[in-house]
């Protein structure tokens, strides 16, 4: 029972981390302007 809870917490944490990757990606796409450096 406690093992399932522990592994559930672990999967939840990593799912959150994957969501964090997606959020960072969204933020970077909305922030990055095309490079106009000559």
């Amino acid at each position, binding site marked *: 029972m406690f093992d399932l*809870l522990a592994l559930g917490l*672990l999967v939840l944490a990593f799912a959150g*981390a*994957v969501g964090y990757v997606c959020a*960072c990606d969204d933020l970077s796409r909305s922030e990055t*302007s095309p490079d106009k*450096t000559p």
Partner: protein
Amino acid sequence: MTWRGWLQIVIFAVLITALVKPLGGYIVRTVDGGGHVSRIFAPVERGLYRLAGIDPAEEQSWISYALALLWFHLVGIAAFYALLRLQGLLPLNPQQLDAMTPDLALNTAVSFATNTSWQSYGGESTLGYLAQMVGIVVQSFLSAATGVAVAIALVRGFARRSSATIGNFWVDLTRITLYVLLPICIVAALILVWQGVPQTFGAYVTATTLEGGQQVLARGPVASQMAIKLLSGDGGGFFNANSAHPFENPTALAGIVEMLLIFLIGAALTNAFGRMVGDQRHGWVLFGAMAVLFVAGLAVVYGSEGHPNPALSQFGLDQAAGNMEGKEVRFGAGQSALFATVTTASSDGAVNAMHDSFMPLSGLVMMANMMLDEVIVGGPGSGLFGILLFAIVAVFAAGLMIGRTPEYLGKKIEGNEVKMTMLALLCVPVAILGISAVAAVLPAGLSGLNNAGPHGFSELLYAYTSGAATNGSAFAGLSANAPFYNLTLAAAMFAGRFLVIIPVLCIAGTLAAKRIVPASNGTLPTHSMQFVGLLVGTIVIVGGLTFFPALALGPVAEHFALQAGLTY
């Protein structure tokens, strides 16, 4: 303070500085698949790729790189957790030690996968040889290689122009493990065996003491674990006493070798950074900033420990050797102060003395070293990407002051990089201060404290600082093997590792996609002593503003109380 203590410090500083350049060059060659060692072991590397179905020529975007890293560690933590829970049924357990409890197993698995090595258990009384070797040692290798891989990916972001990729996580992980960590560890383990560290599968032995009593002496495959424990920045000891145990750290020479191993990769990566961006001076600037912060911290710690403890002076004790409470007499105040500064400036967390017994100002420095986000050498890779985050803040602040678009190494630092840098830099303080605040008011948190007043608060603050900064050293005095501490510390370690790495990889990806702007007269020089000062100032100010209130409640208050004759 003694001349022997200063001599050890000078020897250590000279040796580590001398090793930075050759090892930095070696790392750059091996990461790209070159060099003699790579050529010799190339068939092994190719075999591993074939086995795992990986195309080493295929590069990854930052998102693919991050997802591969997360997937790899999810599987690693789950496998390590299972190993700890099934220990009683597995071989190589001559003492027939039982399985860990679920909360302790989760804490331990997260701890070593995040390169923290916080240990809420005593190694020799909890873990069998299989768990030590297949669990602790393997995770030490892989977590260190992950840190270096992330740092290399970020450096590629600076070095590449208009690139959609930052490397291949699996290739970086494999090459760093095979060609950098493994060869150094083999040599280091042999040196430690020569100095007297055990390496055996034999069971614990019973010895007859001089008084005629019986004493069980724990032993095992210690030397091989010590080598990667120190090199990886993990720091998790085979024995509960860690590097204060005579079987982990038998001689003064072993002590110096251990400290060199702790700093080796982190220091050399500054040179690797300089080489990869095409100008080694940039690497020396980072190394210089690290050195300034390290020397300042060491001066405070050795200054505090090299003098008598005023609370003990009133009893007429001979304190000519300094504050020796909690220290091994074999090492003295000098090497203990050096080791404590090295282990907290890096992310290692091995200890050769009890940090709880250091003077309050030493405790302050040790906590500050960790709170500064592992930028003083730090762990393998994490130190480099940590200080590069502060370099981005420094050029951003300087850009605002002189009214120009901030640039670093020819890359424009724009809104996205600054936001990601802030996300990465704020994650650790939020974890440390937020969870410490919760633990300081909940009965479950307060019940673990063994001291009252500011010292008790320091114990608690140190624990979460050590966890979130992925250091792993303990102040001691805290009864941390309880579900509340095991779970909250696991959360701090997870946040302090993965929630920092993700924005770092995002920065790597966006920087790699940019062009390199040629330097002009208006470009802020980032290879000068002036930039060392700017970088050190940024680190101290950001760290000071963030953590000073918490430190004032703990070690600062305890320092003044001690001067007034109050102890806790």
